[in-house]
């Protein structure tokens, strides 16, 4: 069924750099997994309401009150390249 997987496209979407060997090895494995999941499609779910959430809970809200959680925390220091109060990353648009 879905064995026609485009491994290059999937790798690009997941930001994975795969070697040709890896692609050859992974493509059939992925196709198998997807085929297996497709088994679900054989079930007759016409009488089942679509599940919005696994818990029967709705409308969980917070009030709009500002709170500074963990004021001492220095998240920036966890980053590979903090610089001048910013997170430095590879150049995006040239």
């Amino acid at each position, binding site marked *: 069924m879905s064995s026609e997987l485009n491994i290059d496209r999937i790798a690009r979407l997941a930001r994975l750099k795969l070697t040709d060997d890896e692609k050859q090895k992974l493509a059939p494995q992925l196709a198998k997994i997807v085929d297996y999941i497709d088994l679900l499609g054989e079930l007759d779910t016409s009488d089942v309401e679509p599940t919005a*959430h696994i818990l029967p809970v709705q*409308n*969980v809200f917070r009030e*709009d009150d*500002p709170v500074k959680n963990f004021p001492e925390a220095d*998240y920036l220091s966890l980053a590979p*390249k903090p610089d001048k109060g*910013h*997170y430095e*990353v590879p150049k995006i648009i040239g």
Partner: protein
Amino acid sequence: MKYETVIGLEVHCQLKTKTKIFCSCSTEFGKNPNENTCPICLGMPGVLPVLNRQVVNFAVRAGLATHCRIEPMNQFARKNYFYPDLPKGYQVSQFDHPLATGGYVNILIDGEKKKINLTRIHMEEDAGKLVHGENMGNPESSYVDFNRTGVPLIEIVSEPDLRSSEEARAYMVELKSILEYADVSDCNMEQGSLRCDANVSLRPFGQEEFGTRTELKNINSFKFVQKAIDYEVERQTSLLEQGDKVILETRLYDSNRGVTYSMRSKEEAHDYRYFPEPDLVPIVLDEACVEEIAKTLPELPEPKRERFTAEYGIPAYDAQVLTATRPLADFYEETVKLHNHPKAVSNWMMGDLLRELKNDDQEIQDCKLTPQRLAGMLDLIEAGTINGKIAKTVFEEMYNTGAEPETVVKEKGLGQIADEASIEKLVDQILEDNPQQTADYRNGKEKLMGYFVGQLMKASKGQANPALANKLLKQKLGSGS
């Protein structure tokens, strides 16, 4: 071949909540970079987002104000893509169950009403801000500020109902006005709290099928909406005329150069792999709750416009200008309540007042003029104490200093000269200084009256009571002595 322009707009509007959509971080603008962040908006593993109640309230208001159907059940979804301004690797948005659907916005084009249908309105979180390297030290890097990450937005998606850049602009103007009336956003375009993406395509006139579209990203002013679309229409027209094809792509508008340029090519076309956000539960809005919110909406721009033309008998154009913002409309109504000449009030507001405000880049609620003072000045004109020309001076003084009209007139000696003796003296002098014209007038050249009135107004610095001036001039010139 002649092509028809087809435009649909996706407008992003920042809601004016105090905190972010899924965490308690402040949304305050202008803080130090990355000051308004916490583990939730930074996308740390294991955190749990909780929805801000006020976001739903504002989004429902926006939906009702644009005649949408508020969906009884709506739900968030993850939109997956990688970009450094998006710490989680997905944006929490809505997909197959948006908050509101349908709806419309009426715009006025050349005095004609045109209905622009809406597809949907959904809630989502904003991404962070990227600063490019040149401004920060390392030109080979980009720098991320996550203060804006998680700030609540609504996205308002229109049907491809717009047919020109003028219509797109008018739609943005009207939408901004509605959102301001509904009090859900400050709609500050310079700070990016109202911005839009435009989907633009061309098709031969008469063809039903849409042409290939391009998406113009992140346009943040009325002027740029129009210019970016104009440029894009021109670009696509010349492609089609040369027998080339328009390719489906995202383009950015460069306001400095006045051009659009390609941002992503077709091969990289997005596949967002939306799926329901498992960390957030569905939102169920019953009719009573929506009804409660509807009750708190004020009169909106369109009904207000129609009421202004009906109730005050002013032209549709005046009504449109005066209802652009709520404070402006309130100012007008309060002034008319005190001085019941709606057109005169409209003329002064649309002319002098709006011009001064524009010059000073000021909002009406921040200026020194009040409805009481404007009405007071108009009363003085009506009573004949000052004429229209002098009123301009009084107006300027009131606008600049916040003085009362009577005070300005008294202190500057601007009241009309209404005693006969003073005017008579001026008339005598004018007749003496202009013997030739006086003689000509008496020999039948009666159209010289205008000349004499002009001389008298000049001599009295515009303060002579016009009726009295006319009467005395006629008397003196006619007496032949």
